[in-house]
């Protein structure tokens, strides 16, 4: 968080430009993003993002918690896809522990992650369209997102802060009506995507507002560390799910959409295609869901089943130990990266051999992608800034952490 004077060095009184403050309370800044714009008439000369309004010190808090308690913190980083964050963190800790996760747990994780990608993209599409001026798309998107939130509630008890993935597997076996409900959603969802596309893709205003706006070429995207759909829209074919698979993604068949255009339109088309791919992966997961346990065989790390605690002394002891003292993790460090809806989500976890992480660092995709915003907007019209912000799909929770 900075002062405006320190951010823009040149004195606006001396020349023809003007400083305009946008945000942090602006409806189209997707949270509390503040942009300081130096404008010459309608043209943006310089754009400086000012962040930190949502900084809650999650990394610092994580150092004071047991490993299993940090899962709850990871939900709060990117609140549009909490399970993606859960997954990245638990994968990192499981790598430190050297745990093997049963296939059923892995498949459910992948399935839920793809559902999270869809619900996150739905929020993106709804709010992006709202920014551009298409009100009704927002209502359609949130109708489907509502069903997804109910599915998360069904499986984890929570609509948003799910904490469903635990170190060593899942919190619980999903309830019996979970898979039929996901199946029902997956069957109808492609039609719904057609509906959104019917509202937007052929819409003259939508096309004019998006095409040729917020351009970013491949070299700039790589130099600025941009990842995810924004990178792929600039023509770089890179997806961690396919290129460096984790959690059983190698068992799934899916296409990675890539576009060469590098503008806001390309990002829109690409994310819509990603939703279609994700729902196809959910169908694959439902069709091939393996049977078996959803927790690893590691009594010192994984909480025992409720039934066992009532009948077995050891289970009760382990439960008490894990809850009161946590579990220790061997010394070491890992960097685990996964493909979140916004790009490369990376967790760097350092262990000093105790029950609390020595350091947890989150490499959040929005934080890095935001750096590309100036490149997209400078020299362009001020009205296009709103379109560009929407197109990189930032979440301020994970930027400020």
């Amino acid at each position, binding site marked *: 968080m900075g002062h405006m004077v320190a951010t823009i060095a040149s004195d606006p009184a001396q020349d023809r430009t003007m400083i305009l403050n946008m945000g942090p309370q602006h409806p189209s800044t997707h949270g509390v993003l503040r942009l300081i714009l130096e404008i010459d008439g309608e043209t943006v000369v310089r754009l400086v993002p000012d962040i930190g309004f949502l900084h809650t010190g999650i990394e610092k808090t994580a*150092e004071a918690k047991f490993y299993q308690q940090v899962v709850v913190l990871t939900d709060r980083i990117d609140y549009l896809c909490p399970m993606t964050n859960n997954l990245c963190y638990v994968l990192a800790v499981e790598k430190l522990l050297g745990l093997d996760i049963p296939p059923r747990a892995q498949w459910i994780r992948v399935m839920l992650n793809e559902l999270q990608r869809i619900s996150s993209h739905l929020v993106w599409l709804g709010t992006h369209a709202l920014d551009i001026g298409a009100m009704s798309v927002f209502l359609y998107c949130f109708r489907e997102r509502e069903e997804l939130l109910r599915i998360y509630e069904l499986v984890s008890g929570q609509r948003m802060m799910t904490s469903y993935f635990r170190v060593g597997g899942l919190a619980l076996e999903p309830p019996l009506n979970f898979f039929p409900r996901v199946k029902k959603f997956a069957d109808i969802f492609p039609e719904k995507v057609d509906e959104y596309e019917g509202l937007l893709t052929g819409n003259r205003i939508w096309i004019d507002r998006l095409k040729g706006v917020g351009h970013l070429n491949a070299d700039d995207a790589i130099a600025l560390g941009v990842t995810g759909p924004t990178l792929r829209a600039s023509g770089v074919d890179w997806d961690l799910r396919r290129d460096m698979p984790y959690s059983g993604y190698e068992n799934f068949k899916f296409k990675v959409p890539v576009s060469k255009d590098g503008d806001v339109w390309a990002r829109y088309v690409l994310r819509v295609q990603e939703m279609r791919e994700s729902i196809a992966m959910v169908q694959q997961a439902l069709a091939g869901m393996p049977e078996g346990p959803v927790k690893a065989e590691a009594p010192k790390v994984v909480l025992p089943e409720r039934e066992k605690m009532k009948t077995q002394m050891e289970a009760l002891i382990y439960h008490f130990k894990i809850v009161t003292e946590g579990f220790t993790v061997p010394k070491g*460090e890992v*960097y685990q*990266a996964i493909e979140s809806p916004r790009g490369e989500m*990376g967790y*760097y976890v350092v262990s000093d051999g105790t029950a609390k992480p020595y350091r947890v660092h989150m490499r959040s995709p929005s934080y890095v992608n935001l*750096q590309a915003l100036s490149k997209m907007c400078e020299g362009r019209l001020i009205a296009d800034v709103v379109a560009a912000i929407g197109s990189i799909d930032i979440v301020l929770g994970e930027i400020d952490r």
Partner: protein
Amino acid sequence: MGSLLNWNSAAVQGAAFDRNELSVYIDRAYIREACALLKSKAGVDFFSDLTCVDWHPSEPRFEVVYQLLSRGRKERVRLKVKLMGDDASLETITGVWPAADFFEREIYDLFGVRFLGHPNLRRILMPEDWDGHPMRKDYPVEGYR
């Protein structure tokens, strides 16, 4: 790794391979050149992450950690630079990877490690007039400082 050793063995202080992840310790004077070399010669074409670990009260206190990625070989490499607590500064790599800009500001903000030559080294997450660097281990999690 080999290309780093061939280039300047004085720059490489050590290496570790743990849990399928390669870490290379680089002398702080050479970090920018090491990044530039990996980028141009070794096909390490993507900058993923940059962070810092505070090992207070032991010395060298800070460890600045660079996560780099080779998209061609689908491999990651981690570079680490150790810094003493009373002289926590090193060269910026924003010239090699512009993406490091926000990360270096964040480390400066939260750890107080200075990046020499950074174009805009100001606080990024904490307020401009904040006192202290919250991610340091001697900075309490709660209560008064």
